[in-house]
């Protein structure tokens, strides 16, 4: 009995000792942690970088939370007690912020914004933090986060990163992440001393045509100031030289594909802005100078839709497309009924009247929305790039606009060729008197045709809101281009507009790298004038009796 008690006492004592020492230990760790945090208060950016490094090295369990907050601009100094606190994510407009203690992660009350001083970051510090934080994310459950983490780590590779990547390589299951890790490890293998291994690494890298890889390989070919090669091993140099030229060839090909895509995407924007005009100007013969302002109405409709549904920016575009069609279409019908119908057959007066309307519409939006541009947000699914292979990246918003243009074009073609309205539009444009004699209400058809063309302009405005400023001058900057496309393609021919717009986009983009943007634009314009001189009716002139009589 006594022996047992004595043993029990000893055990208790031991336990107590362990407990005491561990709390004491924890206290010192926490104290250094807090002391480091305190240093952040008035540290310069380079000091902050050093402190962040120390926090990571300390492997304190809260280091990650604190650094994430620093990266997210949520680390503050509270004026009342000069303590460093974390703020919970909050709305920008919120006057006060919910605070969290950095050590316990428990709520620490709230404070008004004025009482808090943010611990700022700059680009360099954020980059360091991101690379450092990536190490925490390397084992995340989400493969996209892992991929991002590896990409971040590739931005600056060192020994500790190498160790982490090696560790991760075995466990990684996602093929893309695995590919990136392997790339990183191969790049690191270049630093080794075994010549055969390095050459093997160079040969693997030759199949990864990336600028980063090329730059790394090119450093193997550099010379010192005294003319000797930095890299002593001639075999490695030879391998690197072949690899660099192979990558260069691949990059040239990818560059050409990229330029082609740029041309197509500019072309599809041109088609989109011109296709509505191809209806009103091409089919009806109305020179509508307010066409650009109808696009502007579509862009503002997108803005209004986004303001009305701030929680669903991603879906707002799908609401905005029909809304813009209706708003611009109605504006077009009103314009046709109140002004244009009195001016048929008098092109100069139509031009002046619609120019006046365009100014009135600009002033209207200035009065409603002020002269300032409006911020239209790009939905998350429309931003970013689609990575094709190692060197080719296609931006999503451009890709969607190319697809969108094709859809709009197909629908419009179907409407004109397959529907009753389309049949009537074609009948009226070819021979008005005959169409009337067949019982078509030509006035109604005129209004509908103009509404259709205007509605398409509104839809183009939705696309433009994703590319450029939404402001009162939006229309002016596109009106000339849209007329050019229609005239070039051949008045009254939708296919002409498509081919015309696409080829103008391609020529523009092929010229731009050599001639520059300013000269490129001039060259396209001059070429267009010469072309119109040779073929006044454009690429695809209308033929037949109806065209002759015009």
């Amino acid at each position, binding site marked *: 009995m006594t022996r047992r008690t004595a043993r029990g006492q000893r055990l208790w004592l031991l336990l107590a000792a362990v407990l005491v020492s561990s709390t004491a230990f924890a206290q010192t760790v926490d104290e250094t942690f807090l002391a480091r945090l305190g240093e952040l208060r008035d540290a310069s950016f380079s000091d902050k970088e050093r402190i962040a490094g120390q926090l990571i090295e300390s492997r304190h369990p809260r280091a990650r939370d604190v650094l994430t907050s620093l990266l997210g601009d949520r680390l503050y100094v509270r004026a009342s007690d000069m303590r460093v606190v974390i703020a919970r994510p909050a709305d920008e407009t919120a006057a006060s912020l919910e605070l969290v203690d950095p050590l316990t992660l428990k709520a620490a009350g709230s404070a008004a914004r004025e009482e808090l001083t943010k611990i*700022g970051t700059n680009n360099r510090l*954020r980059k360091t933090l991101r690379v450092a934080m990536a190490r925490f994310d390397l084992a995340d459950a989400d493969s996209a986060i892992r991929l991002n983490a590896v990409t971040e780590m590739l931005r600056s590779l060192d020994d500790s990163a190498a160790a982490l990547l090696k560790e991760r390589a075995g466990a990684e299951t996602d093929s893309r992440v695995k590919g990136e890790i392997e790339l990183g490890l191969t790049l690191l293998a270049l630093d080794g001393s075994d010549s055969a291994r390095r050459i093997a690494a160079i040969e693997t890298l030759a199949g990864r045509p990336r*600028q980063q890889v090329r730059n790394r390989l*090119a450093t193997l070919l550099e010379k010192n100031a005294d003319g000797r090669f930095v890299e002593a091993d001639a075999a490695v140099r030879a391998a690197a030289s072949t690899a660099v030229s192979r990558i260069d060839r691949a990059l040239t090909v990818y560059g050409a594909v990229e330029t082609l895509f740029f041309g197509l995407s500019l072309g599809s924007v041109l088609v989109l802005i011109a296709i509505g005009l191809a209806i009103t100007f091409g089919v009806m013969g109305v020179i509508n100078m307010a066409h650009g302002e109808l696009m502007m109405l579509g862009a503002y409709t997108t803005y209004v839709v986004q303001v009305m549904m701030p929680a669903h920016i991603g879906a707002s575009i799908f609401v905005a497309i029909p809304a813009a069609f209706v708003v611009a279409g109605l504006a077009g019908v009103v314009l046709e009924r109140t002004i244009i119908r009195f001016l048929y057959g008098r092109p100069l007066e139509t031009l002046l009247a619609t120019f006046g309307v365009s100014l009135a519409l600009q002033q209207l939006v200035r009065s409603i929305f002020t002269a*300032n541009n409006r911020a239209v*947000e790009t939905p998350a699914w429309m931003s970013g790039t689609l990575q094709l292979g190692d060197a080719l990246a296609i931006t999503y918003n451009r890709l969607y606009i190319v697809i969108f243009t094709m859809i709009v074009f197909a629908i419009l073609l179907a409407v004109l060729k397959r529907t009753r309205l389309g049949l009537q539009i074609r009948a009226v444009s070819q021979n008005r008197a005959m169409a009337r004699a067949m019982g078509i209400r030509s006035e109604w058809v005129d209004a509908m045709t103009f509404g259709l063309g205007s509605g398409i302009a509104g839809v183009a405005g939705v696309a433009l809101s994703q590319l450029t400023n939404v402001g009162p001058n939006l229309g002016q900057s596109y009106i000339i281009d849209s007329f050019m496309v229609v005239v070039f393609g051949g008045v009254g021919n939708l296919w002409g507009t498509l081919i015309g717009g696409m080829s103008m986009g391609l020529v523009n983009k092929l010229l731009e790298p050599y001639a520059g943007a*300013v000269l490129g634009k001039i060259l396209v314009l001059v070429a267009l004038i010469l072309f119109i001189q040779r073929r006044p009716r454009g690429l695809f002139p209308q033929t037949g009796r109806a065209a002759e009589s015009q």
Partner: protein
Amino acid sequence: MIRKQLFLAAGALAAAAALSSQIFAQGGTIKVGVLHSLSGTMAISETTLKDTILMMIEEQNKKGGLLGKKLEAVVVDPASDWPLFAEKARELLEKDKVAVTFGCWTSVSRKSVLPVFEKDNGLLFYPVQYEGEESSKNVIYTGAAPNQQAIPAVDYLMKDVAVKRWVLEGTDYVYPRTTNKILEAYLLAKGVAPADISINYTPFGHADWQTRVAAIKRFGSAGKKTAVVSTINGDANVPFYKELGNQKISAEDIPVVAFSVGEEELSGLDTKPLVGHLAAWNYFQSIKSPANTKFIDTWHAYVKKPKRTTNDPMEAHYIGFNLWVKAVQKAGTTDVDKVLAALPGLETPNLTGGIAKMLPNHHITKPVYIGEVKADGQFDIVWKSAGTVPGDAWSDYLPGSKDIEADWVTLKCGNYNTKTKVCSGQNYK
């Protein structure tokens, strides 16, 4: 005796006349011209400046006006049309006989009114950062000269960000072309290789940035830290930054420092793709100082919109207006020549806690700040100059303008050539 009486009578009459004219003067007003576009493409930027001057006038009148008279604003609208600027300037000077004019934004509008102000001996306060290479007797430049904005920004990138490769991207007109010429000369003088500098111009309102941004990406991935110095104007900025975001060029990899993107411009666009990019100005709304807080509060109360931003050219007008008030008080008159003589050497507090001093070359001293764009459309200051920087009218880095000096106090000349010892008068070329 009779003669003496006559003298007395004449004296009394003269005194009475003087007295009555003084009474008349006390009831009169001083006219202040406001020459900013309220319609057209520049209305976005210039309307705010008109409001700023109207607010300053209201504040001054609350303090009892100037020289015992009320200030009266004469607002005209040159409608972003450069020839119309000259016409409206003439109207202000010859018809309305304004004592001073606050106005213009673009360099081309300033160049267009310059001959009018010089011919009619008017006084213009010009509040916008500009390309330099000018100093007129009749113009006070309260915006930044290149050495107060562009050069410090490049210095910051070179020293603090360790940038080795440079893209000078601009819109094709006078301000970017002159600024880039100065910057190129400066970079070459600092030992940057010509192969590491790429200069490009795009047309006004350029919207398709795919090729340019891809080229910047390629130029920037040569293994050396690269930065873009942007003098891209107005509306072309939004598609430019959007394309940068889409092609995943982050500010951490290739920062863009802009000289014409401020709080006002940011309020009209989705700032997400811009976060971390830089702007160099002499004032930011986010700078904390008692004077700035007071100014922002007064501004919000005046426009009755608690979210309207303040910006750098507004501060320039604030400084310019206060300098003019001080000069008029010192001279005791609004006569242009006397005010111009009183101006050099005058000091007035700026909004960021420093002092703006009027220099003999008609420029002022300004602090330089570099800010990074935040998601809320404001700027975080990442660098500031040690003190204030005196504005230099003629750049020291261009071969043609190195030897030219502007001094309206001792030399009485805006472009005195120190080598040939010739003042070429009002010819700025």
